Protein backbone atom coordinates (compact mmCIF):
# COMPACT_ATOMS: atom_id res chain seq x y z
CA UNK A 1 0.00 0.00 0.00
CA UNK A 2 2.86 2.26 0.92
CA UNK A 3 4.49 1.29 -2.32
CA UNK A 4 1.40 2.19 -4.30
CA UNK A 5 1.17 5.52 -2.51
CA UNK A 6 4.83 6.21 -3.25
CA UNK A 7 4.26 5.45 -6.88
CA UNK A 8 1.25 7.77 -6.94
CA UNK A 9 3.46 10.51 -5.47
CA UNK A 10 6.44 9.72 -7.63
CA UNK A 11 4.62 9.72 -10.93
CA UNK A 12 3.39 13.34 -10.80
CA UNK A 13 6.74 14.38 -9.37
CA UNK A 14 8.62 12.79 -12.24
CA UNK A 15 6.15 14.27 -14.67
CA UNK A 16 6.65 17.70 -13.14
CA UNK A 17 10.41 17.31 -13.47
CA UNK A 18 10.36 15.92 -16.99
CA UNK A 19 7.78 18.20 -18.55
CA UNK A 20 9.95 21.34 -18.45
CA UNK A 21 12.81 19.28 -19.87
CA UNK A 22 10.63 17.96 -22.67
CA UNK A 23 9.30 21.44 -23.37
CA UNK A 24 12.82 22.79 -23.66
CA UNK A 25 14.22 19.92 -25.70
CA UNK A 26 14.66 20.03 -29.45
CA UNK A 27 12.70 17.26 -31.07
CA UNK A 28 12.97 16.53 -34.78
CA UNK A 29 10.66 14.15 -36.54
CA UNK A 30 10.73 13.33 -40.24
CA UNK A 31 9.32 10.81 -42.66
CA UNK A 32 10.83 9.86 -46.02
CA UNK A 33 8.45 7.92 -48.25
CA UNK A 34 9.98 6.52 -51.38
CA UNK A 35 8.98 5.46 -54.83
CA UNK A 36 11.79 3.25 -56.09
CA UNK A 37 12.01 1.68 -59.52
CA UNK A 38 15.17 -0.29 -60.19
CA UNK A 39 16.64 -3.08 -62.26
CA UNK A 40 19.28 -3.76 -59.60
CA UNK A 41 20.67 -7.18 -58.79
CA UNK A 42 19.66 -8.85 -55.52
CA UNK A 43 20.37 -6.26 -52.88
CA UNK A 44 23.10 -6.76 -50.30
CA UNK A 45 20.29 -6.47 -47.72
CA UNK A 46 19.05 -9.82 -48.99
CA UNK A 47 22.51 -11.38 -49.13
CA UNK A 48 23.06 -10.51 -52.79
CA UNK A 49 25.86 -8.61 -54.47
CA UNK A 50 23.72 -5.81 -55.87
CA UNK A 51 24.98 -2.31 -55.24
CA UNK A 52 21.64 -0.74 -54.39
CA UNK A 53 19.33 -0.68 -51.41
CA UNK A 54 16.37 -1.81 -53.50
CA UNK A 55 16.44 -4.46 -56.19
CA UNK A 56 14.27 -5.57 -59.07
CA UNK A 57 12.05 -7.67 -56.81
CA UNK A 58 11.20 -4.89 -54.35
CA UNK A 59 7.90 -3.04 -54.22
CA UNK A 60 7.57 0.36 -55.80
CA UNK A 61 6.54 2.07 -52.56
CA UNK A 62 9.10 1.94 -49.77
CA UNK A 63 9.82 3.46 -46.40
CA UNK A 64 12.95 5.51 -46.97
CA UNK A 65 13.33 6.48 -43.34
CA UNK A 66 11.29 7.53 -40.34
CA UNK A 67 13.35 9.55 -37.90
CA UNK A 68 12.87 10.91 -34.41
CA UNK A 69 15.69 12.85 -32.77
CA UNK A 70 15.96 14.56 -29.42
CA UNK A 71 18.53 17.02 -28.19
CA UNK A 72 18.66 18.98 -24.96
CA UNK A 73 20.99 20.88 -22.68
CA UNK A 74 21.22 18.75 -19.58
CA UNK A 75 23.60 20.67 -17.32
CA UNK A 76 25.89 23.64 -17.86
CA UNK A 77 27.61 23.24 -21.20
CA UNK A 78 26.60 19.59 -21.55
CA UNK A 79 24.10 18.52 -24.17
CA UNK A 80 22.56 15.13 -24.84
CA UNK A 81 21.40 13.89 -28.25
CA UNK A 82 19.84 10.71 -29.53
CA UNK A 83 18.80 9.84 -33.08
CA UNK A 84 16.28 7.05 -33.70
CA UNK A 85 15.42 5.72 -37.15
CA UNK A 86 13.29 3.11 -38.80
CA UNK A 87 14.57 2.01 -42.22
CA UNK A 88 12.42 -1.01 -42.86
CA UNK A 89 9.90 -3.00 -40.89
CA UNK A 90 11.85 -6.14 -41.89
CA UNK A 91 14.96 -5.00 -40.02
CA UNK A 92 16.34 -6.83 -36.99
CA UNK A 93 15.16 -3.88 -34.87
CA UNK A 94 12.43 -1.93 -36.67
CA UNK A 95 13.42 1.17 -34.67
CA UNK A 96 17.02 1.61 -33.68
CA UNK A 97 19.65 4.18 -32.73
CA UNK A 98 22.08 5.64 -35.25
CA UNK A 99 23.77 8.16 -32.93
CA UNK A 100 23.55 8.84 -29.19
CA UNK A 101 26.01 11.00 -27.31
CA UNK A 102 26.74 13.54 -24.63
CA UNK A 103 28.50 16.66 -25.81
CA UNK A 104 30.44 19.25 -23.85
CA UNK A 105 30.09 22.40 -25.88
CA UNK A 106 31.19 25.50 -23.98
CA UNK A 107 30.46 28.90 -25.49
CA UNK A 108 33.70 30.25 -26.95
CA UNK A 109 35.07 33.22 -25.01
CA UNK A 110 37.97 33.58 -27.41
CA UNK A 111 38.68 32.35 -30.90
CA UNK A 112 39.58 28.90 -29.49
CA UNK A 113 36.82 26.40 -28.88
CA UNK A 114 36.95 22.97 -27.29
CA UNK A 115 34.45 20.20 -27.77
CA UNK A 116 34.15 16.78 -26.20
CA UNK A 117 31.80 14.05 -27.34
CA UNK A 118 31.08 10.87 -25.43
CA UNK A 119 28.89 8.16 -26.89
CA UNK A 120 28.22 6.91 -30.40
CA UNK A 121 28.61 9.27 -33.34
CA UNK A 122 30.14 9.64 -36.80
CA UNK A 123 33.81 10.29 -37.41
CA UNK A 124 34.23 13.47 -39.49
CA UNK A 125 34.75 11.73 -42.84
CA UNK A 126 31.73 12.71 -44.93
CA UNK A 127 31.46 16.16 -46.44
CA UNK A 128 28.13 15.21 -48.02
CA UNK A 129 26.10 14.58 -44.88
CA UNK A 130 25.33 18.09 -43.69
CA UNK A 131 21.67 17.79 -42.77
CA UNK A 132 20.30 16.55 -39.42
CA UNK A 133 20.48 12.83 -38.78
CA UNK A 134 23.56 12.43 -40.99
CA UNK A 135 21.35 13.05 -44.02
CA UNK A 136 22.69 13.88 -47.43
CA UNK A 137 21.01 17.10 -48.67
CA UNK A 138 22.31 16.71 -52.25
CA UNK A 139 21.23 13.24 -53.37
CA UNK A 140 19.13 10.37 -52.00
CA UNK A 141 21.90 7.78 -52.34
CA UNK A 142 25.22 8.65 -50.81
CA UNK A 143 28.54 8.28 -52.60
CA UNK A 144 30.10 4.83 -52.48
CA UNK A 145 32.72 6.15 -50.07
CA UNK A 146 30.28 7.65 -47.58
CA UNK A 147 27.76 4.82 -47.96
CA UNK A 148 30.45 2.60 -46.52
CA UNK A 149 31.00 5.05 -43.64
CA UNK A 150 27.28 4.81 -42.82
CA UNK A 151 27.35 1.04 -43.05
CA UNK A 152 30.42 0.07 -41.04
CA UNK A 153 31.81 3.00 -39.07
CA UNK A 154 30.72 4.60 -35.85
CA UNK A 155 32.88 6.13 -33.16
CA UNK A 156 31.65 4.58 -29.92
CA UNK A 157 33.85 6.26 -27.38
CA UNK A 158 35.23 9.75 -26.88
CA UNK A 159 36.38 12.48 -29.25
CA UNK A 160 38.03 15.76 -28.30
CA UNK A 161 38.18 18.64 -30.77
CA UNK A 162 40.03 21.92 -30.60
CA UNK A 163 39.09 24.53 -33.16
CA UNK A 164 40.35 28.02 -33.93
CA UNK A 165 37.51 30.28 -35.10
CA UNK A 166 39.78 32.65 -36.93
CA UNK A 167 37.24 33.97 -39.46
CA UNK A 168 34.91 35.30 -36.75
CA UNK A 169 37.97 36.99 -35.26
CA UNK A 170 38.70 38.76 -38.54
CA UNK A 171 41.19 36.26 -39.91
CA UNK A 172 41.25 34.25 -43.12
CA UNK A 173 40.97 30.73 -41.74
CA UNK A 174 39.24 28.47 -39.25
CA UNK A 175 41.14 25.32 -38.45
CA UNK A 176 40.89 22.48 -36.01
CA UNK A 177 41.77 18.93 -35.10
CA UNK A 178 40.04 15.99 -33.46
CA UNK A 179 41.40 12.94 -31.70
CA UNK A 180 39.15 10.01 -30.83
CA UNK A 181 39.41 6.68 -29.05
CA UNK A 182 36.65 4.14 -29.39
CA UNK A 183 35.60 0.52 -29.14
CA UNK A 184 32.79 -1.70 -30.42
CA UNK A 185 33.78 -1.26 -34.08
CA UNK A 186 35.86 -4.41 -34.58
CA UNK A 187 33.77 -6.07 -37.33
CA UNK A 188 34.22 -2.95 -39.51
CA UNK A 189 35.74 -4.22 -42.74
CA UNK A 190 33.65 -7.36 -43.18
CA UNK A 191 31.21 -5.68 -45.55
CA UNK A 192 33.78 -3.92 -47.70
CA UNK A 193 35.81 -7.14 -48.00
CA UNK A 194 33.00 -9.58 -48.75
CA UNK A 195 30.54 -7.43 -50.64
CA UNK A 196 32.53 -4.40 -51.79
CA UNK A 197 31.16 -0.88 -52.12
CA UNK A 198 27.48 0.08 -52.53
CA UNK A 199 25.48 3.27 -53.02
CA UNK A 200 22.45 3.95 -50.84
CA UNK A 201 21.21 5.93 -47.86
CA UNK A 202 20.64 3.29 -45.20
CA UNK A 203 22.80 3.63 -42.10
CA UNK A 204 23.51 0.61 -39.96
CA UNK A 205 21.88 1.17 -36.56
CA UNK A 206 23.93 0.66 -33.41
CA UNK A 207 22.04 -2.46 -32.35
CA UNK A 208 21.02 -3.51 -35.84
CA UNK A 209 22.40 -5.68 -38.61
CA UNK A 210 23.46 -5.34 -42.19
CA UNK A 211 22.95 -7.92 -44.88
CA UNK A 212 26.20 -9.18 -46.36
CA UNK A 213 27.08 -11.61 -49.09
CA UNK A 214 27.65 -14.88 -47.30
CA UNK A 215 28.51 -17.30 -50.07
CA UNK A 216 24.99 -18.16 -51.01
CA UNK A 217 22.66 -17.04 -48.26
CA UNK A 218 21.15 -14.15 -46.47
CA UNK A 219 23.27 -13.19 -43.52
CA UNK A 220 22.76 -10.47 -40.98
CA UNK A 221 26.05 -9.10 -39.77
CA UNK A 222 26.61 -7.32 -36.48
CA UNK A 223 28.89 -4.35 -37.10
CA UNK A 224 29.14 -2.63 -33.73
CA UNK A 225 30.73 -5.07 -31.34
CA UNK A 226 33.88 -5.26 -29.22
CA UNK A 227 35.93 -8.38 -29.92
CA UNK A 228 39.60 -7.84 -29.05
CA UNK A 229 39.33 -5.33 -26.17
CA UNK A 230 41.73 -3.02 -27.97
CA UNK A 231 40.55 0.57 -28.53
CA UNK A 232 40.69 2.06 -31.98
CA UNK A 233 41.75 5.61 -32.77
CA UNK A 234 41.19 8.22 -35.41
CA UNK A 235 42.66 11.65 -35.84
CA UNK A 236 41.51 14.36 -38.16
CA UNK A 237 42.31 17.93 -39.08
CA UNK A 238 40.49 20.56 -41.10
CA UNK A 239 41.06 23.98 -42.55
CA UNK A 240 38.31 26.33 -43.68
CA UNK A 241 39.03 29.52 -45.64
CA UNK A 242 36.92 32.67 -45.63
CA UNK A 243 36.46 32.13 -49.37
CA UNK A 244 34.33 29.05 -48.73
CA UNK A 245 36.94 26.33 -49.23
CA UNK A 246 37.31 23.49 -46.72
CA UNK A 247 39.91 20.77 -46.52
CA UNK A 248 39.55 17.69 -44.31
CA UNK A 249 42.02 14.91 -43.60
CA UNK A 250 41.50 11.84 -41.44
CA UNK A 251 43.46 8.78 -40.41
CA UNK A 252 41.45 5.86 -39.05
CA UNK A 253 42.72 2.68 -37.44
CA UNK A 254 40.42 0.45 -35.41
CA UNK A 255 43.53 -1.43 -34.21
CA UNK A 256 41.65 -4.68 -34.53
CA UNK A 257 43.44 -7.89 -33.60
CA UNK A 258 42.60 -10.01 -36.67
CA UNK A 259 43.06 -13.24 -34.73
CA UNK A 260 40.49 -12.35 -32.06
CA UNK A 261 37.16 -14.06 -32.61
CA UNK A 262 33.70 -13.69 -31.13
CA UNK A 263 31.61 -16.79 -31.60
CA UNK A 264 28.32 -15.19 -30.57
CA UNK A 265 28.35 -13.02 -33.68
CA UNK A 266 30.39 -15.42 -35.81
CA UNK A 267 33.03 -12.87 -36.66
CA UNK A 268 36.60 -11.81 -36.11
CA UNK A 269 38.06 -8.45 -35.27
CA UNK A 270 38.92 -6.93 -38.61
CA UNK A 271 41.95 -4.67 -38.57
CA UNK A 272 40.76 -1.77 -40.71
CA UNK A 273 42.84 1.30 -41.48
CA UNK A 274 42.35 4.07 -43.98
CA UNK A 275 43.25 7.62 -44.90
CA UNK A 276 40.72 10.05 -46.27
CA UNK A 277 40.94 13.50 -47.79
CA UNK A 278 38.06 15.78 -48.60
CA UNK A 279 37.56 19.15 -50.20
CA UNK A 280 34.39 21.21 -50.20
CA UNK A 281 33.76 24.57 -51.80
CA UNK A 282 30.65 26.61 -51.09
CA UNK A 283 30.52 29.33 -53.72
CA UNK A 284 28.83 32.71 -53.32
CA UNK A 285 26.12 31.82 -55.85
CA UNK A 286 25.02 28.76 -53.89
CA UNK A 287 27.27 26.45 -55.78
CA UNK A 288 28.78 23.49 -53.94
CA UNK A 289 31.66 21.30 -55.03
CA UNK A 290 32.63 18.27 -52.96
CA UNK A 291 35.47 15.88 -53.68
CA UNK A 292 36.55 13.05 -51.39
CA UNK A 293 39.08 10.28 -51.59
CA UNK A 294 39.62 7.29 -49.31
CA UNK A 295 42.22 4.54 -49.39
CA UNK A 296 42.53 1.71 -46.90
CA UNK A 297 43.16 -1.89 -46.05
CA UNK A 298 41.38 -4.47 -43.90
CA UNK A 299 42.80 -7.75 -42.62
CA UNK A 300 41.21 -10.69 -40.82
CA UNK A 301 42.49 -13.99 -39.29
CA UNK A 302 46.14 -14.93 -39.20
CA UNK A 303 46.11 -15.74 -42.90
CA UNK A 304 47.80 -12.85 -44.73
CA UNK A 305 45.78 -13.70 -47.83
CA UNK A 306 42.72 -12.47 -45.97
CA UNK A 307 43.71 -8.91 -46.68
CA UNK A 308 41.70 -6.56 -48.84
CA UNK A 309 42.66 -3.15 -50.16
CA UNK A 310 39.93 -0.66 -50.96
CA UNK A 311 39.77 2.83 -52.38
CA UNK A 312 37.07 5.18 -53.61
CA UNK A 313 36.64 8.76 -54.68
CA UNK A 314 33.87 10.98 -55.94
CA UNK A 315 33.19 14.43 -57.28
CA UNK A 316 29.88 16.15 -56.62
CA UNK A 317 28.60 19.41 -58.09
CA UNK A 318 25.45 21.08 -56.79
CA UNK A 319 23.67 24.28 -57.63
CA UNK A 320 20.79 25.89 -55.75
CA UNK A 321 18.22 27.74 -57.84
CA UNK A 322 15.67 29.24 -55.50
CA UNK A 323 13.68 26.40 -53.99
CA UNK A 324 15.44 23.88 -56.21
CA UNK A 325 18.77 22.14 -55.96
CA UNK A 326 20.41 20.23 -58.79
CA UNK A 327 23.23 17.82 -58.06
CA UNK A 328 25.45 15.55 -60.15
CA UNK A 329 28.04 13.09 -58.86
CA UNK A 330 30.62 10.74 -60.32
CA UNK A 331 31.83 7.83 -58.16
CA UNK A 332 34.75 5.49 -58.63
CA UNK A 333 35.48 2.54 -56.33
CA UNK A 334 37.57 -0.62 -56.11
CA UNK A 335 38.38 -3.46 -53.72
CA UNK A 336 40.99 -6.13 -54.28
CA UNK A 337 42.28 -9.00 -52.22
CA UNK A 338 45.99 -9.07 -51.54
CA UNK A 339 47.55 -11.12 -54.29
CA UNK A 340 51.07 -11.70 -53.07
CA UNK A 341 50.16 -14.28 -50.43
CA UNK A 342 48.08 -16.85 -52.22
CA UNK A 343 47.33 -18.20 -55.67
CA UNK A 344 44.31 -17.01 -57.62
CA UNK A 345 41.40 -16.61 -57.47
CA UNK A 346 41.48 -13.36 -55.57
CA UNK A 347 38.40 -11.29 -55.18
CA UNK A 348 38.53 -8.15 -57.22
CA UNK A 349 35.94 -5.45 -57.66
CA UNK A 350 35.81 -2.21 -59.60
CA UNK A 351 33.07 0.18 -60.50
CA UNK A 352 31.85 3.62 -61.27
CA UNK A 353 28.53 5.38 -60.79
CA UNK A 354 26.71 8.44 -62.08
CA UNK A 355 24.06 10.15 -59.99
CA UNK A 356 21.72 12.99 -60.92
CA UNK A 357 19.36 14.48 -58.35
CA UNK A 358 16.79 17.25 -58.24
CA UNK A 359 15.49 18.53 -54.91
CA UNK A 360 12.38 20.68 -54.81
CA UNK A 361 11.80 22.30 -51.45
CA UNK A 362 8.13 23.25 -51.19
CA UNK A 363 8.46 24.75 -47.72
CA UNK A 364 10.33 24.11 -44.50
CA UNK A 365 8.29 20.97 -43.87
CA UNK A 366 8.07 19.30 -47.26
CA UNK A 367 10.53 18.50 -50.03
CA UNK A 368 10.66 16.12 -52.95
CA UNK A 369 13.86 14.57 -54.24
CA UNK A 370 14.11 12.78 -57.56
CA UNK A 371 17.25 10.77 -58.26
CA UNK A 372 18.55 8.77 -61.18
CA UNK A 373 21.50 6.51 -60.51
CA UNK A 374 23.54 4.17 -62.71
CA UNK A 375 26.20 1.84 -61.34
CA UNK A 376 28.57 -0.08 -63.60
CA UNK A 377 30.54 -2.64 -61.65
CA UNK A 378 32.59 -5.77 -62.08
CA UNK A 379 33.09 -8.27 -59.27
CA UNK A 380 34.67 -11.67 -59.88
CA UNK A 381 32.80 -13.23 -56.94
CA UNK A 382 29.41 -12.85 -58.63
CA UNK A 383 29.73 -16.14 -60.58
CA UNK A 384 29.43 -17.92 -57.19
CA UNK A 385 25.82 -16.71 -57.23
CA UNK A 386 25.38 -17.78 -60.81
CA UNK A 387 25.64 -14.19 -62.03
CA UNK A 388 27.91 -12.60 -64.60
CA UNK A 389 30.81 -10.65 -63.05
CA UNK A 390 29.73 -7.46 -64.76
CA UNK A 391 26.55 -5.64 -63.77
CA UNK A 392 24.90 -2.45 -64.88
CA UNK A 393 22.26 -1.34 -62.37
CA UNK A 394 19.90 1.60 -62.60
CA UNK A 395 17.51 3.13 -60.14
CA UNK A 396 14.99 5.93 -60.31
CA UNK A 397 13.76 7.11 -56.92
CA UNK A 398 11.43 9.81 -55.70
CA UNK A 399 11.59 10.69 -52.02
CA UNK A 400 8.82 12.67 -50.35
CA UNK A 401 10.29 14.08 -47.17
CA UNK A 402 8.04 15.49 -44.50
CA UNK A 403 9.59 17.03 -41.40
CA UNK A 404 8.02 18.64 -38.34
Amino acid sequence: MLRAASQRTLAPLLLALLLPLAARAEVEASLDLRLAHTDGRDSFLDGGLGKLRYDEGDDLLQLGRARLAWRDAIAGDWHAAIDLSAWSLDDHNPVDVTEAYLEWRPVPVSSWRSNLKLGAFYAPVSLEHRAPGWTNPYTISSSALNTWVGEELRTIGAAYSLEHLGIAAGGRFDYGAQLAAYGWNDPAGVVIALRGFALHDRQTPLFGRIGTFAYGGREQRVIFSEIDNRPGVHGSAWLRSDLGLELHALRYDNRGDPTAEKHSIDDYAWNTRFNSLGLRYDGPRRTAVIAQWLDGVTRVTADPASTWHFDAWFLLLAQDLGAHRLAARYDDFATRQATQYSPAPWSREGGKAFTLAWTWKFNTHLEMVTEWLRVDSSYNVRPMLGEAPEAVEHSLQMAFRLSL
Partner: protein
Amino acid sequence: MRFVFHTLLALCPAAVLAAPLQIQFLAVDGKPVNASVVTLRSVDASRPLARPVPGTIAQDDLAFIPHVLVVPVGSTVSFPNNDKVSHQVYSFSPARSFKLPLYRGTPPPVTFDRAGVVTLGCNIHDQMRAHVFVVEAQYFGRTDAGGRWSAPDVEPGEYQLEIWHPLSRVQRAVVEQHVTVGTAGAQLVIRAAAALKLRSESQVPANWDAY
Protein backbone atom coordinates in the same frame (compact mmCIF):
# COMPACT_ATOMS: atom_id res chain seq x y z
CA MET B 1 12.85 90.74 -38.89
CA ARG B 2 16.36 89.62 -39.65
CA PHE B 3 16.97 89.24 -35.92
CA VAL B 4 13.94 87.01 -35.58
CA PHE B 5 15.09 84.85 -38.50
CA HIS B 6 18.57 84.43 -37.07
CA THR B 7 17.14 83.65 -33.65
CA LEU B 8 14.96 80.93 -35.12
CA LEU B 9 17.96 79.64 -37.06
CA ALA B 10 19.98 79.43 -33.88
CA LEU B 11 17.21 77.72 -31.96
CA CYS B 12 16.50 74.97 -34.45
CA PRO B 13 19.40 74.74 -36.89
CA ALA B 14 18.78 71.21 -38.04
CA ALA B 15 15.17 71.86 -38.92
CA VAL B 16 15.99 74.90 -40.94
CA LEU B 17 19.35 74.02 -42.48
CA ALA B 18 18.95 70.29 -42.95
CA ALA B 19 19.71 69.22 -46.49
CA PRO B 20 19.26 65.95 -48.32
CA LEU B 21 22.28 63.76 -49.01
CA GLN B 22 22.31 60.86 -51.42
CA ILE B 23 25.23 58.53 -51.90
CA GLN B 24 25.58 55.79 -54.48
CA PHE B 25 28.36 53.29 -53.94
CA LEU B 26 29.73 51.47 -56.98
CA ALA B 27 32.28 48.71 -57.31
CA VAL B 28 35.33 49.13 -59.51
CA ASP B 29 33.38 47.72 -62.46
CA GLY B 30 30.58 50.27 -61.98
CA LYS B 31 28.04 47.85 -60.52
CA PRO B 32 26.11 49.10 -57.47
CA VAL B 33 27.15 47.55 -54.16
CA ASN B 34 24.24 46.39 -52.04
CA ALA B 35 24.11 46.15 -48.23
CA SER B 36 27.18 48.23 -47.45
CA VAL B 37 27.31 50.12 -44.17
CA VAL B 38 27.60 53.93 -44.54
CA THR B 39 28.56 56.27 -41.70
CA LEU B 40 28.85 60.05 -41.78
CA ARG B 41 30.69 61.69 -38.89
CA SER B 42 31.12 65.43 -38.53
CA VAL B 43 34.67 66.72 -38.31
CA ASP B 44 33.31 69.07 -35.66
CA ALA B 45 33.90 67.01 -32.53
CA SER B 46 31.44 69.13 -30.56
CA ARG B 47 28.50 67.93 -32.66
CA PRO B 48 26.39 65.37 -30.81
CA LEU B 49 26.46 61.82 -32.14
CA ALA B 50 23.37 59.84 -33.08
CA ARG B 51 21.48 58.72 -30.01
CA PRO B 52 21.25 55.06 -29.01
CA VAL B 53 18.31 53.17 -30.49
CA PRO B 54 16.77 49.82 -29.67
CA GLY B 55 17.68 47.15 -32.21
CA THR B 56 16.55 43.62 -32.89
CA ILE B 57 18.25 40.60 -34.42
CA ALA B 58 15.78 37.73 -34.48
CA GLN B 59 16.47 34.05 -35.04
CA ASP B 60 14.15 32.76 -37.73
CA ASP B 61 14.49 29.38 -39.38
CA LEU B 62 18.01 28.90 -37.99
CA ALA B 63 19.27 32.24 -39.33
CA PHE B 64 19.91 35.66 -37.86
CA ILE B 65 17.51 38.23 -39.28
CA PRO B 66 18.83 40.77 -40.19
CA HIS B 67 22.27 39.47 -41.02
CA VAL B 68 23.74 42.93 -40.44
CA LEU B 69 22.53 45.58 -37.99
CA VAL B 70 23.92 49.11 -37.67
CA VAL B 71 23.37 50.87 -34.35
CA PRO B 72 24.91 53.89 -32.60
CA VAL B 73 27.15 53.37 -29.58
CA GLY B 74 25.12 52.77 -26.43
CA SER B 75 22.27 51.00 -28.20
CA THR B 76 20.63 47.89 -26.85
CA VAL B 77 19.84 44.96 -29.11
CA SER B 78 17.40 42.20 -28.31
CA PHE B 79 17.71 38.68 -29.71
CA PRO B 80 14.23 37.10 -29.87
CA ASN B 81 14.27 33.43 -30.79
CA ASN B 82 11.30 32.70 -33.06
CA ASP B 83 12.43 29.12 -33.75
CA LYS B 84 11.13 25.98 -32.12
CA VAL B 85 14.68 25.10 -31.10
CA SER B 86 16.95 26.77 -28.57
CA HIS B 87 19.77 29.11 -29.53
CA GLN B 88 22.83 30.32 -27.68
CA VAL B 89 24.05 33.63 -29.06
CA TYR B 90 27.61 34.72 -28.34
CA SER B 91 30.39 36.98 -29.48
CA PHE B 92 34.06 37.15 -28.64
CA SER B 93 34.69 40.30 -30.68
CA PRO B 94 36.79 42.88 -28.81
CA ALA B 95 34.08 45.53 -29.30
CA ARG B 96 31.56 43.45 -27.31
CA SER B 97 32.13 40.05 -25.84
CA PHE B 98 29.07 38.32 -24.39
CA LYS B 99 27.23 35.04 -24.20
CA LEU B 100 23.55 34.45 -23.68
CA PRO B 101 22.34 31.31 -21.98
CA LEU B 102 20.66 28.65 -24.08
CA TYR B 103 17.19 30.08 -24.59
CA ARG B 104 13.89 30.28 -26.34
CA GLY B 105 11.75 33.40 -26.34
CA THR B 106 13.49 36.72 -25.79
CA PRO B 107 16.33 37.11 -23.32
CA PRO B 108 17.23 40.54 -21.83
CA PRO B 109 18.76 42.86 -24.46
CA VAL B 110 22.50 43.39 -24.80
CA THR B 111 24.03 46.89 -24.71
CA PHE B 112 26.73 47.73 -27.24
CA ASP B 113 28.74 50.53 -25.68
CA ARG B 114 31.88 50.50 -27.79
CA ALA B 115 32.32 51.27 -31.50
CA GLY B 116 33.40 48.41 -33.73
CA VAL B 117 32.23 45.35 -35.60
CA VAL B 118 30.75 42.62 -33.41
CA THR B 119 30.47 39.19 -35.02
CA LEU B 120 27.70 37.03 -33.59
CA GLY B 121 27.44 33.27 -33.62
CA CYS B 122 25.17 30.57 -32.23
CA ASN B 123 27.01 27.95 -30.22
CA ILE B 124 24.48 25.29 -31.20
CA HIS B 125 24.18 26.11 -34.92
CA ASP B 126 27.61 27.00 -36.28
CA GLN B 127 26.33 28.13 -39.66
CA MET B 128 24.47 31.07 -38.05
CA ARG B 129 26.46 34.29 -38.36
CA ALA B 130 25.54 37.96 -38.05
CA HIS B 131 27.32 41.27 -37.58
CA VAL B 132 26.47 44.30 -35.45
CA PHE B 133 28.16 47.50 -36.63
CA VAL B 134 28.36 49.78 -33.60
CA VAL B 135 29.02 53.26 -34.96
CA GLU B 136 30.01 56.69 -33.66
CA ALA B 137 28.48 59.00 -36.24
CA GLN B 138 25.74 61.53 -36.80
CA TYR B 139 24.21 59.64 -39.73
CA PHE B 140 24.38 56.01 -40.76
CA GLY B 141 22.59 53.37 -42.81
CA ARG B 142 22.97 50.67 -45.46
CA THR B 143 22.98 50.84 -49.24
CA ASP B 144 20.04 49.36 -51.14
CA ALA B 145 20.07 47.12 -54.21
CA GLY B 146 20.96 50.17 -56.34
CA GLY B 147 23.94 50.88 -54.08
CA ARG B 148 22.12 53.98 -52.74
CA TRP B 149 21.83 55.38 -49.26
CA SER B 150 20.19 58.70 -48.50
CA ALA B 151 19.57 60.90 -45.49
CA PRO B 152 16.92 63.61 -45.91
CA ASP B 153 18.10 65.96 -43.19
CA VAL B 154 21.87 66.24 -43.01
CA GLU B 155 23.14 69.38 -41.34
CA PRO B 156 25.46 71.16 -43.75
CA GLY B 157 29.10 70.90 -42.86
CA GLU B 158 32.27 68.87 -43.22
CA TYR B 159 32.08 65.10 -42.66
CA GLN B 160 34.19 62.01 -42.72
CA LEU B 161 32.40 59.38 -44.82
CA GLU B 162 33.13 55.71 -44.27
CA ILE B 163 31.72 52.77 -46.17
CA TRP B 164 32.17 49.26 -44.80
CA HIS B 165 31.23 46.01 -46.41
CA PRO B 166 30.07 43.32 -43.96
CA LEU B 167 31.77 40.58 -45.96
CA SER B 168 35.00 42.43 -46.69
CA ARG B 169 38.11 40.35 -46.11
CA VAL B 170 39.82 43.45 -44.65
CA GLN B 171 38.65 44.58 -41.24
CA ARG B 172 38.40 48.26 -42.09
CA ALA B 173 36.33 50.66 -44.17
CA VAL B 174 36.54 50.10 -47.91
CA VAL B 175 35.95 53.84 -48.49
CA GLU B 176 37.16 56.67 -46.26
CA GLN B 177 36.84 60.18 -47.62
CA HIS B 178 36.06 63.76 -46.73
CA VAL B 179 32.62 65.04 -47.76
CA THR B 180 31.21 68.56 -47.79
CA VAL B 181 27.44 68.92 -47.47
CA GLY B 182 26.18 72.36 -48.54
CA THR B 183 22.88 73.99 -47.74
CA ALA B 184 21.43 72.53 -50.92
CA GLY B 185 22.55 69.03 -49.92
CA ALA B 186 24.69 66.76 -52.04
CA GLN B 187 24.52 63.83 -54.41
CA LEU B 188 27.65 61.73 -54.54
CA VAL B 189 28.62 58.76 -56.64
CA ILE B 190 31.54 56.94 -55.05
CA ARG B 191 33.40 54.25 -56.87
CA ALA B 192 35.59 51.82 -54.95
CA ALA B 193 39.29 52.37 -55.68
CA ALA B 194 40.03 48.66 -55.71
CA ALA B 195 38.08 45.47 -56.24
CA LEU B 196 36.17 44.38 -53.15
CA LYS B 197 37.56 41.17 -51.74
CA LEU B 198 34.64 39.50 -50.01
CA ARG B 199 34.38 36.50 -47.73
CA SER B 200 32.13 33.67 -48.81
CA GLU B 201 29.80 33.61 -45.83
CA SER B 202 27.21 30.97 -46.46
CA GLN B 203 23.85 32.48 -47.26
CA VAL B 204 22.34 29.06 -47.77
CA PRO B 205 19.10 28.76 -45.82
CA ALA B 206 19.89 26.93 -42.65
CA ASN B 207 17.32 24.22 -43.15
CA TRP B 208 19.33 22.99 -46.13
CA ASP B 209 22.47 22.68 -44.11
CA ALA B 210 22.01 22.15 -40.44
CA TYR B 211 25.61 21.10 -39.78
